[in-house]
């Protein structure tokens, strides 16, 4: 069987395996100062950026804190869990 050339999409992989995100979710336990501390020390964000993300988590219920390859995002999520924050991996734009 021959596949017609026009049906072969060489860019398909980039469509289905696009970037992934780390989402940090709000919880009533973690102190705001602690969340900022984690964002600064783990991701190396400047204070203003870490505070902005923390406030997003607090007010919107969640924030995207990183974007990239799935494996890398899973490492970040594990690190967030290690700090006691709840984070999940999801496909970007989901």
């Amino acid at each position, binding site marked *: 069987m021959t596949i017609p050339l026009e049906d072969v999409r060489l860019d398909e992989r980039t469509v289905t395996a696009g970037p992934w995100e780390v989402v940090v979710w709000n919880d009533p*336990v973690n102190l705001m100062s*602690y969340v900022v501390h984690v964002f600064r020390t783990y991701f190396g964000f400047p204070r203003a950026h870490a505070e902005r993300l923390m406030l997003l988590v607090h007010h919107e219920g969640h924030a995207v804190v990183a974007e990239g390859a799935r494996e890398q995002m899973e490492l970040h999520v*594990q690190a967030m*869990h290690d*700090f*006691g924050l709840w984070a999940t991996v999801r496909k970007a734009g989901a």
Partner: protein
Amino acid sequence: MTTTVLMEVSALEAAHLTDLVAQFVELLADALDGGDDPAVARLVPDGYRGDPEAAAEFRRLTQDDLLDRRRDDAATVLTTLQRDGVVLRPADLDRAEAESSLEIELDAGALSAWLRTLTAIRLVMATRLGITADDDEDDDDPRFGVYNWLGFRLEGLLRAIED
């Protein structure tokens, strides 16, 4: 940011915290034995939402490491809480001893263990206390006092790092 922090607590506080962290270590031991305590489950939350299969696989790969680290961190905290190599227990302290103060010096590694351990114990307590919203609090329950005291100590350490 400073990396070494000097913290002053009363011997009684240190003794109560020692007791609390020791209880936490027992919980972790049960969990590593395959227990399914919901309070411990909060320490190893889902890594994927709305995808139970991916979440289960993620947990399989990360759970033991995370719990091992909680145990190692707790062991570090317990060591720093000793006075001259002696484990403090609330019942062993007379009034004068209870009020005497203890200076705990925390280097970067110990500090990180303290932050994670205080946070983890607060997460466990929050599950036990049924805290699911920012203003869930029952002033008549003395456990909230302990929960808030851990938060106060955590906040103090974070402020000390920033100084």
